[in-house]
């Protein structure tokens, strides 16, 4: 007796020419059914859908890749874990256990790092706005404050005199690096002499000691040459400060901005091909710093704050199909239970989306929508995707950066976050929200109470 083939919905897909590139890269929808050996379906059954999942193994491996690439080229390295990229306690603690300091940009992040047990003198405090009480606490605690503008410089002087302390500080510098748009809104401009004026002002004020220079050339920088340029310019400025003011810096901070393996919406080559390795960034930065005019044993510590490249690849968003529909133009619309309120980065990236179960049937052009009753809730524009049934899981890759900090309680609650340990154990690191989490801070004015 012959068995009949299982019925699938009919699919007809027009062949498109010209979408291949010279690398031959093409979209492959190989299912991702396990994360670090744990079945996707098991995770969803236990913790609910949607669900963020982080791999401790990948977090540690990325950190070790980064430190290994730079330590072979520069004697003293410090990683500052960028809290804004992902400040979940368990994630930050993993990086701190690998030796990272904290890099924070607000009073909230500062408090969070201290609450996690980070010693204040292992915190780099960046950002354009540090309210006076927060700044005062950080200075008294001996955190490393990076001064962003002249008003902040004056405020640090005022606090130092009032409290009778002499803080060690850094200044943030902005500069023009080859091939990327200049970020001039943060720090003092190197090119127009503002940075030089800031140091002269700091030295004349005699209220603090300059021990570090910091610059951050941009975000998701795919061209390491920009870092070579920035490091060379910072090294040149450090040489000038040494000869003019006798300042011996203890660190130079090249900030962050290394790309993860995501693909920007406007990017031609996919992230897996275009993203430079840590080795290439290290080559560029250490080449630039080699122009420092100091004896080898006096070389300053190189500080990096590259959050995205460390955490993005370790994060997954698991979701479930809730509906399939046919759009007016013939494409398939697939609705899933995770929206742009959870996956904020879908506004920037063509996220890699994979089936979470083995699938059969022909892929067809598919638009992936979230569950929000909002037209902006589109997670992927047309991509080839195999047929999925209602309830089937799908997996977004490389979502560890910025999503669990920028997600919103918009229309839906925020879901649980799970960590898979190196031994395959898994545990909640943030439970799913409930109504009480959302309405807890609300108050009812007296005249509305009895309605």
């Amino acid at each position, binding site marked *: 007796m012959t068995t009949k*083939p299982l*019925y699938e*919905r*009919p*699919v*007809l897909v*027009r*062949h498109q020419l010209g979408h291949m590139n010279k690398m031959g890269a093409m979209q492959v929808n190989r299912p991702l059914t396990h994360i670090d050996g744990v079945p996707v379906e098991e995770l969803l059954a236990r913790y609910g859908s949607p669900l963020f999942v982080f791999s401790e193994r990948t977090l540690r491996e990325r950190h070790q890749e980064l430190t290994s690439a730079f330590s072979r080229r520069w004697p003293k390295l410090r990683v500052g874990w960028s809290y804004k990229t992902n400040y979940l306690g368990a994630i930050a603690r993993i990086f701190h256990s690998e030796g990272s300091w904290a890099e924070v940009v607000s009073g909230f992040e500062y408090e969070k790092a201290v609450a996690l047990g980070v010693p204040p003198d292992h915190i780099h405090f960046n950002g354009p706005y540090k309210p006076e009480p927060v700044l005062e606490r950080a200075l008294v605690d001996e955190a490393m404050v990076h001064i962003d503008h002249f008003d902040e410089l004056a405020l640090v002087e005022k606090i130092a005199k009032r409290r009778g302390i002499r803080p060690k500080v850094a200044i943030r510098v902005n500069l023009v690096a080859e091939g990327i748009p200049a970020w001039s809104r943060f720090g003092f401009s190197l090119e127009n002499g503002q940075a030089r004026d800031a140091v002269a002002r700091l030295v004349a004020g005699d209220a603090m000691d300059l021990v570090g220079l910091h610059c951050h050339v941009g975000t998701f920088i795919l061209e390491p040459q920009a870092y070579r340029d920035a490091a060379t310019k910072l090294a040149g400025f450090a040489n000038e400060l040494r000869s003019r003011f006798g300042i011996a810096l203890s660190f130079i901070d090249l900030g962050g901005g290394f790309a993860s393996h995501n693909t920007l919406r406007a990017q031609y080559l996919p992230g897996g091909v275009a993203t430079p390795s840590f080795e290439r960034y290290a080559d560029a930065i250490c080449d630039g710093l080699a122009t420092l005019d100091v004896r080898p044993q006096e070389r300053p510590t190189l500080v990096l704050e590259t959050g995205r490249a460390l955490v993005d690849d370790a994060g997954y968003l698991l979701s479930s199909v809730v509906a399939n529909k*046919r759009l007016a133009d013939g494409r398939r619309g697939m609705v899933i239970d995770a929206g742009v309120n959870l996956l904020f980065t879908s506004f920037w990236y063509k996220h890699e989306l994979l089936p979470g179960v083995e699938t059969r049937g*022909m892929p067809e052009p598919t638009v992936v929508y979230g569950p929000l009753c909002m037209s902006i809730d589109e997670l992927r524009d047309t991509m080839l995707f195999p047929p999925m049934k209602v309830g089937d899981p799908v997996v977004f890759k490389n979502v560890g950066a910025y999503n669990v900090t920028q997600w919103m309680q918009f229309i839906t609650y925020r879901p649980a976050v799970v960590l898979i340990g190196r031994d395959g154990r898994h545990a909640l690191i943030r439970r799913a929200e409930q109504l009480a989490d959302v309405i807890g801070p609300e108050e009812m004015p007296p005249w509305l109470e009895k309605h």
Partner: protein
Amino acid sequence: MNDIDRLRDLALSETGFLFDPYSGATFSLNPTAVTILRALRGSADRVAVLETLKREFDVQSADLEHDLDEFIALLRREGLVSREFGLS
């Protein structure tokens, strides 16, 4: 030329590769779509096409009529049949 003759002129392989000699366009079809297209070349009778699908496939819980209508709409959109084409 009527739509059934137009469908008969399409070059359709066993593996679901379709060539439209009028436009030069090529398509991929899954086995269900191949079966429907072959049935349509015989006649545009809705009941007959549905019976063919039931005979050829292990149909468990699908909405065959809905799927068939969607597929006809796709054929119209891709210019493989006229806008007026419909099942009897």
